[in-house]
C-alpha cells in the first residue's frame, strides 16, 4: 500500500491507512446497524480491533509503517538549506526510499483528520518527530502542518508555515504556477485557519470552538455552515464571539455546551487551547 507519504511505497501496515480502515469499519458498523445482521456488524468491529496502528506508548510516536524506524535517520535540515524541497529530486529516489524523509504529513494526517482516533496527547510527540523529517515536497503539506502547529500551540511556526502555503502561487514558489493554480493548497489555507487557528471541530451534533491565534492578529473572522446553520465567528486576542442562524449547539472554549443563536455569545479565551493541555 502507499500512504500519503509518496516517497515510500509499497509499505506494510501504514498507520494512517490502518487507522482510517479501523475508523471506517467502526463507523460502518454504527451506521449500518439496522441494515446488516448483528453477526456481520460484530465481524466488522472485531476486525477493527485487530488492526495495528504502530503506536508506541513509551514515546507517544506512531511508526509510519513497519520498518520506518529502521530507515536512515535523516532530517531535512541535514540535506537541504530550505524547505519546501522535492527531496526525491535532491536525494534520488533510492536514498529517499531508504531514509526517514517524508513528502508530507502521513501519521500526522490522522491528527489532522481524525483527532479523536489517535492517542490523547500524541500530537506533540509526533509533530516533534515527523515535522523535521518532512520535506513539504507536496503543496498540500505545509497547510496541514500550519493547522497542526497551531493546535499544538506552536504559533510562530504555524504562522510561518501558513505563510508558505498562502504564497505558493503568489510567489510561484514551485516555478510551475503557469501549469495550473494549486487549488487544494489554497483550500488548505482555509482549513488551517478554520480547524487550526480557530479550532473548529464537529463533536457529535455540536460545533466545538477552541481558537488559538497569535497576539499580532487583530481579528480572525470566519463564516461556516454547520448542520444547516450559518455560523459567524470573530476571534480577537483573548476573546471569541460566535453566532448562529438557526440556533446551534456548540462547545465553548472552556468545553461547556452552549446554544448559539443569531445574537451570539462572547467567550473569554485562555492563552493555551484545551487541545494542547
Amino acid at each position, binding site marked *: 500500500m502507499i500512504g500519503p507519504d509518496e516517497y515510500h511505497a509499497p509499505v506494510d501496515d501504514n498507520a494512517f491507512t490502518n487507522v482510517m480502515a479501523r475508523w471506517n469499519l467502526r463507523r460502518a458498523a454504527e451506521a449500518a446497524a439496522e441494515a446488516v445482521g448483528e453477526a456481520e456488524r460484530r465481524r466488522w468491529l472485531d476486525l477493527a480491533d485487530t488492526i495495528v496502528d504502530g503506536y508506541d506508548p513509551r514515546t507517544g510516536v506512531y511508526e509510519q509503517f513497519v520498518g520506518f524506524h529502521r530507515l536512515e535517520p535523516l532530517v531535512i535540515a541535514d540535506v537541504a538549506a530550505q524547505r519546501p524541497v522535492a527531496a526525491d529530486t535532491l536525494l534520488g529516489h533510492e536514498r529517499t526510499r531508504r531514509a526517514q524523509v517524508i513528502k508530507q504529513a502521513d501519521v500526522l494526517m490522522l491528527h489532522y483528520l481524525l483527532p479523536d482516533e489517535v492517542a490523547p496527547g500524541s500530537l506533540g510527540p509526533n509533530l516533534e518527530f515527523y515535522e523535521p523529517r518532512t520535506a513539504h515536497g507536496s503543496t498540500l503539506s505545509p497547510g496541514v502542518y500550519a493547522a497542526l502547529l497551531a493546535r499544538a500551540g506552536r504559533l510562530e511556526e504555524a504562522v510561518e508555515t501558513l505563510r508558505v502555503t498562502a504564497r*505558493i502561487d503568489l510567489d510561484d514558489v514551485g*516555478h510551475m504556477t503557469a501549469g495550473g493554480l494549486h487549488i487544494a493548497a489554497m483550500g488548505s489555507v482555509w482549513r488551517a485557519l478554520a480547524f487550526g487557528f480557530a479550532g473548529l471541530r464537529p463533536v457529535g451534533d455540536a460545533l466545538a470552538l477552541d481558537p488559538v491565534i497569535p497576539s499580532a492578529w487583530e481579528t480572525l473572522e470566519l463564516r461556516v455552515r454547520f448542520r444547516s446553520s450559518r455560523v459567524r465567528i470573530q476571534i480577537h486576542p483573548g476573546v471569541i464571539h460566535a453566532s448562529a442562524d438557526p440556533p446551534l449547539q456548540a462547545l465553548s472554549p472552556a468545553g461547556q455546551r452552549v446554544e448559539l443563536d443569531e445574537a451570539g455569545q462572547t467567550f473569554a479565551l485562555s492563552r493555551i487551547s484545551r487541545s494542547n493541555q
Partner: protein
Amino acid sequence: MTTVLAAIEADACAQSVLSTSLAMAELFEASAVALHVREDATASPRAVAAAAGIELGETTGDAIEQIIAAARDADVAALALGARGLHGGPQPAGHTALEVITQVAKPVAVVPPQARAPEHLARILVPLEGSSESSHALEETVQLAHRHQLEILVLHVHSPATVPAFSDHEPHATAAWEQEFLTRYIATPHERVSLVRRLGVPADDIVSVANETTAELIVLAWGQSLGPGRARVVSETLARSQVPVLLIPTR
C-alpha cells in the same frame, strides 16, 4: 557577405576548426573563410584549407591582434579557433584562444584539440542555468538552430539550492516544471527543443550529457570575463569538452 572566420594554424587542429566553421556557416547562413597568421617561418595550412574548400587568407604579425582585428569586421558573424593546451584541465584553452574569446564580442567556437568536429550540425546542447541574461544572449542562436531544424537539447543542472520546491503529482509536476522552464528561457519553444535535467556540478554534466547525447556543439552564454571566481563553468567545459564549444557573449 556574411562569413564565419576560421582562425587556423598549421597544426593537427586546423582540420577540426575548418570543419567546425563550415558547420557553423550553415547555421549562421554564412560562408566560411579561413585566416592564418604567420608569426615566423612555420608551415602554411594552405593545403588543409584547400582540401576543405575554404578560402584562406594569410597575414603576418601578432596572432591575437590580427585575429581580433579580422573578427571585428562587420561581415564576420562568428569565429572558430582551436583551444590548444589548457589551464586547469587536460586541454586548457591556449593563450590565443583565451584572449580572443574575452575580447571578441561575437559568437566564438573553441575547438578542442581532439574534437569530434562536426561536418554538419544536427543536435546542439544548450546549457541554461535559468537566467534571463543568458536566455537573451542565446536567443538569436536558438532561433537560427530552429530555422535550420536542428535538435536543441536544453540542459539545466540543478544544485541542491535550486531543486524544485514541489513535486505534487508525477508525471504532471515534472512536465509542468519543464514546460515552464522552456517557456521562460527559450524564446521560441518548438517540437525540436527538449529539456534534460541533472543534479550535480554544471561542467561535469555539460560534458557528460554532450557525450551521452552525441551533441555536435555546446552553446554557452557567458560574460567574457575569466577573472577569479568568474566563468568557472565555461573554463571547465572548455578544458574537458570533446566537442566544440560555442561561446555567446551576454553583452
